[in-house]
């Protein structure tokens, strides 16, 4: 009986297996649907403005995801995050300008350089905990910004570096595809790490450092791994941004940008990876429609962060979990 079932449903079960495998990678059907929608956007939407808005949302959402990898899991707020991302931008820009290796090598260099600095920062924060980790990473981020301002021969200081596009014939839609690909790959990789033993160790360290250490988790190792991965991923997106915008100034490393990414990540719900991405797609287009009222936009941003912190620290992803639970309970009742 069983064999009959498998033969008749082999095609269907093959599909089901694929769905299941994708689900294992974190690409559940709703997420795939969102990706497909984004991928279709450049075909059906010819409005540059909307495409740029989608890129901005995806870019900041992806940064929030990288930020959440440290903030939401090992519970260390990297307050110098914008400095790391900016370093990625500078690395990509310098490689693209001064070497003949091309833009793609620049992106790789961006990830490598920031990964290295991330490792170094992880190393510096080893003896520190809690708010001291944030302070240390803040100082490292500000040092990077101060260096970018001071090393005028290399970075042209506040005048900034002019960066060529990723490739000569690129369109806005092309940028969206590249960013979408990068975000997907980074998301799947980050999730694989989170799902592995390492991820378990991250959460253990984040929840109770001493208990984690006592039960045999090596905090040194996992802290270094976490900082390196999160920074490298952030730097990769920073490299993309340099090409997309076409100019890199020290200003992109300022703490204000860290605040923006941090706000998205916490409004989305810390420890959820995708929460920040959804927050970005909700808020950035909304705020952009208030563009002429720039100051009000940021006021709302700050207020949201305050309200989330006071009343709902679980953020959007917490809300989503509650909804799913409610739906499941309702379904269960119906079956009974």
């Amino acid at each position: 009986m069983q064999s009959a079932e498998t033969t008749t449903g082999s095609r269907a079960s093959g599909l089901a297996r694929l769905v299941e495998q994708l689900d294992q990678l974190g690409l559940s059907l709703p997420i795939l649907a969102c990706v497909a929608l984004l991928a279709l956007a450049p075909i059906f939407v010819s409005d540059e403005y909307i495409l740029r808005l989608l890129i901005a949302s995806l870019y900041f959402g992806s940064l929030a995801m990288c930020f959440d990898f440290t903030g939401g899991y090992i519970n260390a707020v990297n307050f110098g995050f914008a400095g790391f991302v900016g370093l990625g931008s500078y690395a990509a820009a310098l490689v693209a300008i001064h070497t003949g290796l091309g833009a793609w090598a620049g992106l790789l260099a961006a990830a490598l350089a920031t990964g290295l600095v991330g490792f170094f920062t992880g190393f510096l924060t080893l003896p520190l905990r809690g708010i001291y980790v944030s302070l240390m990473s803040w100082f490292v981020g500000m040092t990077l910004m101060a260096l970018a301002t001071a090393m005028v021969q290399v970075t042209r200081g506040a005048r900034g570096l002019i960066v060529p596009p990723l490739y000569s014939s690129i369109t806005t839609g092309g940028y969206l595809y590249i960013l979408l690909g990068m975000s997907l790959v980074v998301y799947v990789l980050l999730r694989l790490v989170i799902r592995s033993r390492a991820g378990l160790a991250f959460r253990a360290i984040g929840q109770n450092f001493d208990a984690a250490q006592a039960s045999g988790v090596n905090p040194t190792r996992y802290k270094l791994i976490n900082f390196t991965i999160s920074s490298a991923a952030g730097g990769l997106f920073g490299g993309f941004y340099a090409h997309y915008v076409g100019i890199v100034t020290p200003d992109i490393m300022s703490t204000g940008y860290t605040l923006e990414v941090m706000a998205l990540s916490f409004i989305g719900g810390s420890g959820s990876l995708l929460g920040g991405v959804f927050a970005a797609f909700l808020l950035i287009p909304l705020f952009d429609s208030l563009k002429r009222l720039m100051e009000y936009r940021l006021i709302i941003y700050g207020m949201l962060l305050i309200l989330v912190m006071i009343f709902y620290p679980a953020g959007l992803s917490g809300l989503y979990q509650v909804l799913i639970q409610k739906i499941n309970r309702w379904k269960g009742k119906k079956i009974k």
Partner: protein
Amino acid sequence: MDVTVLQSLLLTGLLRGGLYALMAVGLALVFGVMNICHFAHGEYYVLGAYAAFFGFVTLGLNPIPAILLAAFLSFLAGVITDKLLFHPLRKRSKGEWVMNAFLLTAGLSVVLQNVYRAVFGMRYRGITQYWDASVEIMGMSIAADRIMAFVIALSAIFGLWVFLQRTRTGRAIRAVSQDERGSMLVGINLDHIHTLTFGLGSMLAGLGGASLLSLSPAYPYGGNKPLIASWFVVTIAGLGNTQGAIVAGFIVGLFESFSYFYLGQGWQEVASLCLLILLLLFKPTGLFGTNIKSVWEK
């Protein structure tokens, strides 16, 4: 090195240090008593500057009443902030207090900066001087404003010190900073102490902004620099150490004026940040060995 150069560097360093100390004492107080990593401290500095500007220029007050008005208004703003934001957060947030409070102040900083921008616009609002005079010190003529700002800073710090050491409420504040549960047991009303502390911290920041109005005009984003400077000071002193913050304020002021002279602005920042990183790495308790509370490491 030229003696007059040395003298002028020393003098500017000291004058600057006094104001850093004033800002940092407020920050250290808020951190030590309330366990809040206050990231919006600079915004109360700006509030003080705006209040002094409108008091001095629009209302035509004398300098001292204008500065006092600014101090009072920033105190009030601090009290309102605590009642409106930190009070509800304290009720709800238990284990994650330090991080949540820190993120809340980050949001508060964004909100206040942009409220200033929306209300007052991007204009710089400054005055040329409070007092039309200059003082001769060691052969150099220095504007009376700078001396007065220094004097105001020192007297405010002294006043705070007397208040903390000699009055009943001051002692209660110190008790709360040492042990919250213990002070609750002896009948101290924590809510009142927290509100008062935040008000005092904001007042010190506002006082700084008001007395420096002629040197740095009121501007929506004007709080960033003093904020970063006072965080430097507090880190050097050891988080939450108010007495250390006074000495560290002068250290930072002197270090800045000397390194600025020798390295130029860009590299001066790099140098001071590298020193801070080294300090945090080897002596996270700061130069004066503050006790690290376990909450700060959560």
